């Protein structure tokens, strides 16, 4: 069979295809996003879709499983918090067709607000979890997860981490299994979790766990690897690979299934070695099982290895005193923080907040970068959808004390569909007065341009009805003061902000303009600075646009190869020193929002 270099996420998608999965759903989130993007490449065989959020995605996969179809759902670690409600119910219900839940955790928080370990969820929801250490295992484990799920009538979690999701290694490709024929048969006793049914299901879950524990002891993925010294390493996930680098002579117990923990296998392993190092990313989960089972054994775990950040052979080596990381630190190089792109349709809005000296309650997406210098206009970012709700809480607490502060909540289109709508319902219902700004760039941009209900297209490339946010808010929720404005129109945005923040009623400003990366193909005329007219006032630098810098004389200088000609800098220049290089050329403004939307947002 052919070998290919696949990322862990691509391997999961390939595994879904080989395992005969016919339904897949997800909400995008780093480091999980590419799983569904790659599943969508098998659209002849697998129906795939973006859910509005992780909860809807998991429930839809569960529904598919009810018919006997094999289903997979993927999300980032914090996404499983959103989907936790159906996760626990799914465990009681079990799986008719296989139900595989892929959680991609992000130790080190490369692109997340925390570094939670979702194996805790598998333990709490009493379902098995598999943990691959490279792409081959990621692919194979989807096939194994499907088998386990259908044999033991349980959802199965696959826990990826950033490094397994985003590393490439070679994978041997296999054939596709013939998927079972779906058919919906009612099963009231299992699937209607009224307390009477649920009590019986809980008993079944406890029985299932015992059987799974026995299975884990004999599972081929839980394997002892011979060493030369009486030192043992207990490892799961990518940490196993780091262990092999640092402990070339040790015995290994490599766990593909950390939970249920293979107690008998571990005790056999423990009897072979004098000392056990435990390597795992994030929390001491297999370590705690090991300590319970072998209290007399010398075990080295998170008391020595880092709880914070990613594991690596350097982290392991440093913890053991084999490597002095301080010797490698400190090149004293200025940081290169991420920033909004040149031509980003969010820039003008954040610049205006700065001018008005207003901080926003923020949310999760590219626009969270509005918190960074020089825009510095967002003082909270909590979780998906929390901009609107946190803002309402602040407003009500101040109101009770007879105080008010002009306040703005800011949220992106995809995040609004994900979990902003319910927050806005709270605002209306509870007489909130906040101004909610929805930055609508027609796409889920931060994770790499996934379609969403406002894009006009589905994951599988079908045209879809585009949900217009302003219409939804004005006609659906009844917020009369709903206004749409072009993201590149600096003055219109500022005037609206001033007026709506002063209004003692709830209002919504939809700042519209597709993500600039979506229409980069054309050769837009860039901007330029007239050096004679430029007074070095540096206002344009406060946009934080990567295409603008200050030259040796302190005058503005525009990098024409980065500049998209959005013209926002020309609008903020009081001295009219900035103009198009080619006044008659192609200008990005000439793309109207409606013509763009007709193209499906892509």
């Amino acid at each position, binding site marked *: 069979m052919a070998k290919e270099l696949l990322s862990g996420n691509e391997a999961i998608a390939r595994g879904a295809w080989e395992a005969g999965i016919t339904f897949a759903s997800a909400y995008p989130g*780093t480091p999980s996003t590419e799983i569904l993007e790659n599943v969508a490449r098998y659209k002849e065989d697998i129906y795939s879709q973006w859910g509005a959020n992780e909860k809807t995605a998991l429930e839809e996969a569960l529904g598919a499983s009810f018919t006997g179809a094999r289903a997979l759902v993927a999300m980032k670690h914090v996404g499983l918090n959103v989907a936790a409600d159906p996760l626990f119910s799914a465990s009681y219900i079990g799986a008719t067709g296989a139900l595989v839940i892929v959680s991609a955790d992000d130790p080190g928080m*490369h692109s997340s607000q925390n570094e939670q370990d979702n194996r805790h969820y598998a333990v709490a929801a009493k379902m098995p979890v598999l943990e691959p250490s490279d792409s081959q295992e990621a692919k194979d484990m989807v096939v194994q997860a499907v088998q386990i799920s259908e044999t033991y009538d349980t959802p199965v979690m696959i826990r990826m981490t950033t490094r397994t999701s985003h590393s490439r290694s070679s994978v041997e490709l296999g054939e596709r299994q013939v998927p079972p024929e779906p058919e919906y048969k009612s099963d009231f006793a299992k699937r209607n979790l009224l307390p009477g049914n649920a009590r019986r299901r809980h008993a079944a879950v406890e029985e299932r766990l015992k059987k799974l524990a026995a299975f884990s002891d004999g599972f081929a993925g839980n394997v002892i690897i011979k060493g030369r010294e009486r030192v043992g390493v207990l490892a799961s996930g*990518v940490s196993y690979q780091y262990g*092999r*680098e640092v402990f070339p002579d040790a015995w290994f117990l490599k766990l593909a299934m950390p939970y249920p923990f293979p107690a008998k296998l571990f005790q056999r392993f423990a009897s072979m070695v004098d000392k056990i190092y435990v390597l795992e990313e994030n929390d001491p989960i297999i370590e705690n099982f090991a300590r319970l089972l072998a209290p007399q054994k010398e075990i080295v775990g998170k008391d020595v290895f880092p709880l914070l950040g990613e594991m690596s052979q350097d982290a392991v080596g440093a913890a053991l005193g084999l490597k002095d990381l301080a010797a490698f630190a400190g090149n004293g190089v*200025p940081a290169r923080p991420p920033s909004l*792109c040149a031509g980003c349709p969010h820039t003008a809005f954040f610049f205006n907040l700065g001018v008005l000296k207003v901080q926003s309650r923020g949310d999760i997406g590219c626009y969270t970068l509005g918190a960074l210098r*020089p825009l510095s206009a967002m003082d909270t970012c909590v979780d998906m959808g929390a901009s609107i709700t946190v803002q309402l809480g602040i407003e009500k607490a101040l109101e009770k004390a007879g105080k008010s502060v002009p306040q703005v909540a800011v949220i992106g289109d995809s995040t609004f569909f994900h979990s902003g709508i319910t927050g806005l319902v709270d605002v209306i219902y509870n007489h909130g007065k906040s101004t909610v700004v929805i930055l609508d760039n027609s796409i889920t941009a931060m994770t*790499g341009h996934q379609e969403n209900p406002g894009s006009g297209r589905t994951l599988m490339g079908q045209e879809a009805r585009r949900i217009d946010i302003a219409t939804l808010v004005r006609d659906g929720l009844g917020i009369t003061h709903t206004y749409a404005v072009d993201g590149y129109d600096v003055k219109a945005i500022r005037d609206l902000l001033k007026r709506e923040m002063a209004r003692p009623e709830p209002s919504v400003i939809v700042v519209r303009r597709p993500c600039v990366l979506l229409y980069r193909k054309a050769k837009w005329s860039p901007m330029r600075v007239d050096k004679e007219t430029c007074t070095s006032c540096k206002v344009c630098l406060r946009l934080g646009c*990567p295409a603008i810098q200050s030259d040796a004389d302190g005058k503005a200088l525009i990098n024409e190869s980065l500049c998209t000609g959005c013209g926002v800098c020309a609008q903020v220049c009081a001295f009219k020193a900035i103009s198009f290089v080619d006044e008659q050329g192609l200008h990005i403004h000439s793309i109207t929002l409606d013509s763009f939307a007709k193209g499906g947002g892509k």
Partner: protein
Amino acid sequence: MKSKSILICGVGGQGILTASDLLSDVLLQAGFQVKKSEVHGMSQRGGDVVSTVRYGDEVFSPLPALGETDTILAFEKLEALRHVHYLSAKGIALVNDFAWPPLPVAAGLEKYPADVVERLRKKAHELVLIPATRLAADLGNEKASNVVLIGLLASRMEIDKALWLEVIGKKVPPRFIDLNMKAFESGYRFAS
């Protein structure tokens, strides 16, 4: 053979992941076991981007160890300096002679160090500076600078040149093949 490590670094948008994909494919076809790591998500928005490639008979970790990396291929000078401590005592730094000021520098809040090249020279066993961005611009598109740099890297590795050209031919869209072949050649010939 003992496994080897290459670290590719630069600024989001410079084609770093394309370059490391290309390198990985060449190594896989040359018969090595290959593991590659990369960064996605927030840091791609104009932040620094790193991709690492390890290859050999048997490779475990996809990440290279500090102080044990054989080659750094840097698309931007400051990024070379940011990662130079990954190099081994015999390590080589292949660096695009190109400065892209980070936003805080562009905004005048911080300074781009004036002595980047001197510091690189002190820390790397060997330093090769190549004007890859200019060479690519001369060929008509500075976006091909990543393939110029891959050409330079290829000239330092013992892998048949024909294999590199074959992989580039397969990876690159047809309308860019000519540009990329030329870009590869200009990098490949640069050292000699």
